[in-house]
């Protein structure tokens, strides 16, 4: 193992991660101070927290309480490796994922560097950032606190265990990375087009599992109960190598030296085995990513759904291309995941009420589930839809596409996707929350108005603020100041359109809220229709103005091809 190579590769990997956040590289200098200052701050913060905990502990005079705190601290130390393993896997995966999305992580296998060195560099790089910051914080906190608690030896062993756990988590991530690429390739070859949806479904399932765990912890467990549960779970699952470090700590805390040595050595061997497995996988599959085949059988061009809606062939071509972009590009999948996460969160929230949701709450949930996904998606999709052209934007410039064609295709694509999302959400929430016909109509009309207006607002910002630079130095799709402007404009637009409906919403909600909080509001029957009319007028005016700006933006885009 050539450690110099490992350090050089780590330096390259670290800089590539930084490349994602920087605008300019021309005068880029690596500052060691900036690199390490965060770790220093985490350490200082940990020392402060450890001192606070220790001071609080020494201030306790009740022996029973002191024993209880000591017991809790021991549970915490014993369970920390497993907790660090969980967040370590998540954060190292995120680091890996960021690098996959933003910059290439293809190992430079043609250089005189061994696969062991490549793998070790990748494992160590993934540990940098959030995983290491949290570990530094935890380590310094427990070391300082343990002086007061009288658990110095246990805390030192715990710190060593945490570092080993982090290496284990990162090496596991390395295995995940290679198998993911390999599996995705294999699945894609077999299932073709379905693989794209499989990828999306996997993301959604992961999110549901994550939220379910979060929900159960949030609703049921206090921290001490959680630590106890984790410590108990470790003992029950002793045959799983990932909890052996926790077992070693548990044995150490109970002065079982044979168990301590046995589990520590076993863990060490397991870490080496995981690392070797990661290296072998990289050697086997690390050369190039497999191709993705979208098997579509014999080529038979036909008029698509968009074509049947009356759009011209160039408009349909652009809309089809954009649809494929948001369903196939990793970094754009959040557009689909966002509305689904809103629905999932709402349904988990309803679980708290069991089967008895108050009438006002039911109306509110119906409104939120119907409105939020589509209305949240519009500003994102609208503002990114031009930037996602990236370096391929030359094709739009060199093609016989008029400004009007581009503007129409982009605008109606955003509107159609958002309307489809809203329609699906309204059907799902309608089944669950059974709103009145009037409420359903009001919400759907408001949703449509918001979607038409917000799509125009965000697309106008998207045309002006699009960032077409590709993957290097940064692929951010949008200039930040336009993202900020889009946020404020969309928020103002949404408030303006919904404002006339606020009294109606309060009248529905006030019936189910404590009267001390809200006095019951009663409105004349015609109010809702008058408010809806006002909403329509406001939405049409905003949409009209921003559609003009969209057309202007498209015309400017056509005229300003230089520098592309």
């Amino acid at each position: 193992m050539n450690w110099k190579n490992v350090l050089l590769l780590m330096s390259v990997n670290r800089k590539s991660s930084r490349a994602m956040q920087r605008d300019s590289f021309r005068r880029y200098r690596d500052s060691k101070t900036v690199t390490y200052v965060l770790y220093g701050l985490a350490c200082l913060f940990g020392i402060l927290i450890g001192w606070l905990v220790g001071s609080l502990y020494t201030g306790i005079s009740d022996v029973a309480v002191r024993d209880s705190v000591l017991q809790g601290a021991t549970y915490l130390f014993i369970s920390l490796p497993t907790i660090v393993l969980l967040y370590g896997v998540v954060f190292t995966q995120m680091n890996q994922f960021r690098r996959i999305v933003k910059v290439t992580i293809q190992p430079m296998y043609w250089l005189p560097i061994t696969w062991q060195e490549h793998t070790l560099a990748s494992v160590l790089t993934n540990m940098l950032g959030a995983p290491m910051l949290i570990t530094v914080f935890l380590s310094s906190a427990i070391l300082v606190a343990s002086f007061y608690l009288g658990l110095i030896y246990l805390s030192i062993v715990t710190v060593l265990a945490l570092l080993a756990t982090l290496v284990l988590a990162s090496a596991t991530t390395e295995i995940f990375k290679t198998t993911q690429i390999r599996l995705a390739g294999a699945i894609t070859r077999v299932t073709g087009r379905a693989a794209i949806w499989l990828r999306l479904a996997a993301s959604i399932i992961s999110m549901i599992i994550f939220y379910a765990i979060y929900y159960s912890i949030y609703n049921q467990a206090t921290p001490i109960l959680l630590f106890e549960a984790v410590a108990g779970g470790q003992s029950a699952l002793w045959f799983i190598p990932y909890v052996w470090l926790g077992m070693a700590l548990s044995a150490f805390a109970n002065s079982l030296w044979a168990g301590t040595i046995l589990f520590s050595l076993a863990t060490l061997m397991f870490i080496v085995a995981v690392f070797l497995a990661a290296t072998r996988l990289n050697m086997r599959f690390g050369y190039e990513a497999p191709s993705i085949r979208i098997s579509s059988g014999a080529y038979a061009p036909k008029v698509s759904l968009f074509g049947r809606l009356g759009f011209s062939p160039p408009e349909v071509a652009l809309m089809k291309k954009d649809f494929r972009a948001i369903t196939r590009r990793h970094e754009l999948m959040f557009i689909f995941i966002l509305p689904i996460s809103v629905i999932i969160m709402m349904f988990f929230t309803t679980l708290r009420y069991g089967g008895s949701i108050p009438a006002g709450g039911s109306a509110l949930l119906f409104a939120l589930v119907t409105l939020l996904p589509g209305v949240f998606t519009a500003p994102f999709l609208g503002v990114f839809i031009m930037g996602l052209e990236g370096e391929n934007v030359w094709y739009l410039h060199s093609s016989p596409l008029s400004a009007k064609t581009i503007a129409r295709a982009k605008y109606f694509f955003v509107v159609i996707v958002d309307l489809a999302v809203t329609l699906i959400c309204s059907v799902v929430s309608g089944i669950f929350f059974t709103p009145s016909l009037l409420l359903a109509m009001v919400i759907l009309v408001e949703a449509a108005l918001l979607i038409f207006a917000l799509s125009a607002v965000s697309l106008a910002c998207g045309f002006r603020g699009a960032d077409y630079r590709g993957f290097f130095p940064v692929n951010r799709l949008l200039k930040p100041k336009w993202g900020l402007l889009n946020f404020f404009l969309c928020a103002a637009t949404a408030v303006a359109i919904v404002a006339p409906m606020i009294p109606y919403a309060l009248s529905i909600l006030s019936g189910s809220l404590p009267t001390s909080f809200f006095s019951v509001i009663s409105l004349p029957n015609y109010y809702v229709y008058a408010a809806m009319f006002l909403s329509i007028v406001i939405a049409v005016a905003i949409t009209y103005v921003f559609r003009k700006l969209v057309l202007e933006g498209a015309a400017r885009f056509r005229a300003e091809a230089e520098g592309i």
Partner: protein
Amino acid sequence: MAYSFAAKLTGVSKRYSDVTAVENLDLEVKKGEILGLLGPNGSGKSTILKMLLGLVKPDSGAVNVLGVNLMDASLALKKRIGYVPEGSYVYEFLTGLEFLDFAGDVFQISLEEKKKRIEEFLKALDLEGRESDMISSYSEGMKQKILIISAMMHKPELLLLDEPLNSLDPKSARIVKNLLRKLASQNVATVMSTHVLEIAEAICDRIAIMYEGRLLALGTMEELRQRAKMPNSGLEDIFLELTGTGDVKPIVEELLR
């Protein structure tokens, strides 16, 4: 529309901040001609191609393409031009077939015609069997083939090709060369930039040698030989002589020291 030249640049200049990309250029491209643009990096070749397509506006001078002044150019003109840019930037999340289908729709080719041409081109350029793979998994050469097909499938009257044969395998390069010659015989003009002097020598009717934004020489191979006073030389020697970059011996010796 009747026009005497496929393209004509008169007194054209273009600067990017303090860099002169093209300086006072006069150039005519005849109908059915293959004109090669030669020159070192930064000599203005790509800028000329972009000006002919209307992507870059000249600071001064006039550009006339297919009988239309570029200042008055409409989208209809772009339908008559095929363009391959330098660098294989294609929508990588599409398959080759989907990209060609997209290009066919953008240029408004009928469904039957589109299917016929795509299938013909895919077969001719050995892309059959890989057309349903995502472009992200294509080699540079395959991406280049897709771009060349997309530039040719709508039967343009003028082809603007920026380093078109880069990364192509010998068979595909030969097919593209033959295709260009065939199109030239059908009055389709081609302006192509290249660094590969053998290609320029083999297929270009005339060659324009650019250096630091200026047109150093223009003519057939024979005319260039006469101009350089190198009667039996190949294009490489002529190019190095005319651009004054021929004395590479000291550099090589320094590198080998």
